[in-house]
């Protein structure tokens, strides 16, 4: 079941004071997110990630297209009871303590006073806010506000949580804790939609990703799907290979690297399928230690997509030029 569905979602802004020109922050965005997925929404700065999240939270309104969350139109009050949202660089009320803020938000979901206190305490424990929870938020560092922001997004035990740059401002320990938190959410069946330009986080956490560049969706799929077609060959590690065999096999191998201890790493190009070379090696007495595809990382894929989009003059945020070109 799709928990998020967008169709042709488009957002134009007017820029310029004397001669306002439409600027396309988002163009014709169509994608779905399935239940229980950890979905990474990736893109360089200014790609339209936050705009998409704001449209899904109905903080801004689309110029065209539509979006549904949990089968209902965005903005449906019933849906809000079932989702959580962390804004990019969140900011909360300076004069409230972390504890009070969470209790305040929990009350909006109809929890009793004792449940609000219990939830606030539990969530602040989960995000690593200790005695500081009784300090006013004006005294919090950026990273601590980010932790409080994550806690408030989970105050209603959401089925679906939107996190806009959740790792922003966090130290390495905080980043690891948030990664673990996202995995715990996934394990309990919560769908996580998070935007980021930190690709290592996406690679470690996401079952599926979408990449937006200049307001347009340029890729969408599982990390395996997106990077598999860019497989560059195979890495075969063998041991017990004689010099004769080594010489014979070198013909179809790109590189041979000695790993020490009689082990060699053979890099096979795509033109040399491993099933052709492995039987020969085994027959000559060598042992196969491992076989792995040599693939592009998500980072390689991401950079290739962004560069391609930047080179593509038909992609761009300038609506006027685009209309004139068409």
């Amino acid at each position, binding site marked *: 079941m799709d928990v998020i569905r967008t169709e042709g979602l488009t957002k134009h802004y007017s820029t310029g004071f004397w001669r306002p020109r439409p600027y396309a922050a988002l163009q014709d965005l169509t994608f779905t997110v399935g239940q229980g997925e950890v979905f990474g929404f990736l893109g360089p700065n200014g790609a339209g990630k936050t705009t998409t999240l704001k449209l899904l939270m109905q*903080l801004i309104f689309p110029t065209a297209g539509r979006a549904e969350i949990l089968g209902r139109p965005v903005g449906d009050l019933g849906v809000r009871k079932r989702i959580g949202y962390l*804004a990019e660089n969140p900011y909360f009320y300076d004069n409230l303590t972390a504890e009070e803020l969470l209790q305040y938000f929990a009350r*909006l*979901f109809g929890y009793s006073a004792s449940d609000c206190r219990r939830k606030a305490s539990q969530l602040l424990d989960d995000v690593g806010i200790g005695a500081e929870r009784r300090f006013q938020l004006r005294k919090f560092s950026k990273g601590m506000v980010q932790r409080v922001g994550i806690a408030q997004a989970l105050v209603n035990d959401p089925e679906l949580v939107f996190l806009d740059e959740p790792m922003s401002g966090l130290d390495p320990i905080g980043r690891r804790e948030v990664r673990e938190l996202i995995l715990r959410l996934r394990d309990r069946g919560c769908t996580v939609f998070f935007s980021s330009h930190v690709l290592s986080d996406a690679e470690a956490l996401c079952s599926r990703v979408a990449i937006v560049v200049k307001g347009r969706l340029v890729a969408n799929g599982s990390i395996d799907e997106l990077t598999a077609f860019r497989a560059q060959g195979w890495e075969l590690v063998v041991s017990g290979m004689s010099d004769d065999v080594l010489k014979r096999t070198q013909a179809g191998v790109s590189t041979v690297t000695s790993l020490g201890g009689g082990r060699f790493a053979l890099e096979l190009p795509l033109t040399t399928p491993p099933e052709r070379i492995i039987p020969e090696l085994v027959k000559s007495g060598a042992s196969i230690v491992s076989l792995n595809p040599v693939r592009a990382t998500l980072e390689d894929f991401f950079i290739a997509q962004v560069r391609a989009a930047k080179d593509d003059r038909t992609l761009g945020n300038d609506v006027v030029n685009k209309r004139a070109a068409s």
Partner: protein
Amino acid sequence: MRAIAIVAAGVFRDSIRERIAYGLVFFALLIMAASFLLAQLTAGQDVKIIKDLGLAASSVIGLFIAIFFGISLVTKEVERRSIYGLLSKPVTRSQFVIGKYLGLAVTLVINVAVMAAALYVVLAYFEWSTPGKAKEAWEAAAIDPALIKAFALIAVELLVITAVALFLSTFSSPFLSVALTVAVYIIGHFGDDLKHLDNIVESKALATVGRGVYYVMPNLARLDVKSAVVHAVPVSATHMFFSTLSALLYVAVLLTASTLVFARRDLK
């Protein structure tokens, strides 16, 4: 209603911790205390001076709080993006606007009540310390219950000004909102003059514009009974009732307009 009450309680809690609000109320209390000293210098007019200054200080300080806090209710939330967290919860934009307004309204009413109580304390001490003969020159008793009417209408006026500030801030910049709210306050105090502008000017067009402005602007002059109370002129219950009713209707219209404007606004 529950969401509105929770948002209002949040505003109240936030605003009672604003040091600037305490500073302003303290300043009003200081003026009241100072008026006591000033009164010592003016024979016969002493109690009037204390009442005049006390009511004026309450009104002006309340006006400051109403304008600046009223405008920041929405603009601060939008500029600092704290609204994102709140609107992602089960709260509609109209509940947000009304809750914010009510939270500040409660704060303002409490502020006015504190200033009223302070003025009564000053007046009680003045009465206690004034010889019986000197009291005979007073037009009204020092501890005059009619003062409550003046304070009540000050509070109603502040509710109107807060609604004006909130409405303007839903679509204009903070600076422009302050300027326009102050303009509404000033024009609102000349309501009757605007209505009868044809008695002063010859231009029919100008008189018509004046009448038009009169019908659009709140009639704040009707809510100003400070002078009447100080000079022991009776303020009827009918006047209190209809002035309050028309002011509250004006507030209701402004809140409706604010929610309609805010409902479709992009929170960039």
